[in-house]
């Protein structure tokens, strides 16, 4: 399967990363070869095989609805690139 530059640009955009022209070229080749490799799996007959998302046999892990302490405001904001008062500050969002 061949991926084109447009597809690479679309994926980069979804992931919010900026790519250089060289990187785009590089990823066209790399992703195409990865997909071709994965495509081999499609040659297998999986019609009667259920999709499997969990390899672990465990299920139904819950916690009770009980309060636990939250963390302090300075700790909340410590890693934020920008803050204002008790808020995280982000580039303007227009809706």
């Amino acid at each position, binding site marked *: 399967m061949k991926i084109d530059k447009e597809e690479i640009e679309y994926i980069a955009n*979804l992931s919010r990363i900026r790519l250089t022209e060289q990187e785009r070229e590089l990823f066209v080749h790399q992703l195409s070869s990865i997909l071709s490799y994965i495509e081999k799996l499609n040659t297998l007959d999986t019609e009667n095989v259920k999709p499997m998302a969990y390899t672990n046999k465990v*299920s139904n*892990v819950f916690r009770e609805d009980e309060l636990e302490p*939250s963390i302090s405001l300075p700790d909340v904001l410590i890693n934020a690139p*920008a803050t204002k008062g008790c808020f*995280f500050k982000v580039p*303007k969002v227009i809706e």
Partner: protein
Amino acid sequence: MTYEVVIGLETHAELATITKLFCGCSTKFGVDPNTQVCPVCLGMPGVLPVMNKKAFEYAMKAAVALNCKIDEFTNFDRKSYYYPDLPKNYQISQNYHNLGVDGYMDISVNDAVSRIRIHNVHLEEEAGKLIHPEEVGADYSLVDFNRAGVPLLEIVSYPDMRRVDEVESYMQTLRKILLYTEVSDCKMQEGSLRFEASISLRKKGTDKLGNRVEIKNLNSMKSVLKAIEYEAIRQRDVLDRGETVDRETRLWDEVNEKSARMRSKEESQDYRYFPEPDLLPVLIDEKWLRAIKDTIPELPLVRRQRFIESFALSEYDASLLIDEKILADFFEECVKILNRPKAFCNWITNDLLREVKDRKLDIYHLKIKPKQLAALVEIIEKGTISSTIAKEVFSEMIQTGKDPKTVVEEKKLAQISDEGLIEEIIIKIISSNPDAIEDYKKGKKNALTFLVGQVMKETKGKANPKIVNDLLKEKVGI
């Protein structure tokens, strides 16, 4: 050209847990920004979400109440998108194995019942809150993550509605079901209950659905109805011009009462759902499902019908009573004590609701108890107090929680039925109102009403009106 409007609704209801869906942070509303957050709900690296059992069971309960099929296997998926209110850059939701599917809800419009199918009911986490500063030219937004991770129930209907009155009934009925099952407090002003509408038009008599437009930012039930009306007209005009309606998402502008494009289909988001590897699947066995089913109370429409049939109430009265579960419960308690459904219905829907409104009382914490209202109805029937005086007694009871007999004694409100005493008063009134007696003898019937009024005034409304009437007629000589 006549068109049929095809409407579906997506509803988000905040579940009534005290902690978030995947961590022990509080869900309390209205606290200082970013004070109810932890590494889990802030999406810090290396943390592990653990499902709140109560939230999951509330979602099961709602799915059962909405007649959904509940599969034995359910799991959670990541919905990926970048937005500053979403700390992990994905939302944990359900996509491939929704908790409940193919349900329905019966709604009633002008006493005709119709069935609206429910596509699915699923559980997901809430995002944070964005604040847009009001200062002119501000180039930033602020984020409060207190809401991030709060458990939400999403209920997606099929596009089975055709008119706004159906939409209104759908919203009201759904709200009542969520309140009756106690899975959500449904406070719209706190965002606990939110709706999004999807609308398309098709030519009458055809099956093919037109392009669908989704409307967001609907802050009240009224906005939902207005936005649908606006959108139906907008699409009709587009079609009448021979153009096609664009498949898009629009935002409702509540102030100007119109909508504007938010994003087109081409710009629509690619969520790349995949199973959430941090959470294990949930298996629901028969026993667990049955235990959940057993917690579901009688639902509003069924209860209304039972009230009409068992207590001979009108549709209107029954609807008023079932509107709030707590009132319907109060009513039933009263009837159990004393079999006077109509009287209790009147007291609750008239006097009680008026007092609650005027005095801004909380119906969930009323001081008056069913056995006290029953005692009040009993002493009216016995003739201890008149129905006019009873209103005064009731008002005192609802404010203080006192028994009716106590109020009557304290305020000396007992009805005067002592004929001798009433006679004395009547003689006094007759002698001081000779004109009225003359009028009455000339045939003016309302002169008698005037005299009764004078006696009642003299006794501060406490004289037994029947005795007053009889004695007066006797005295003025008929």
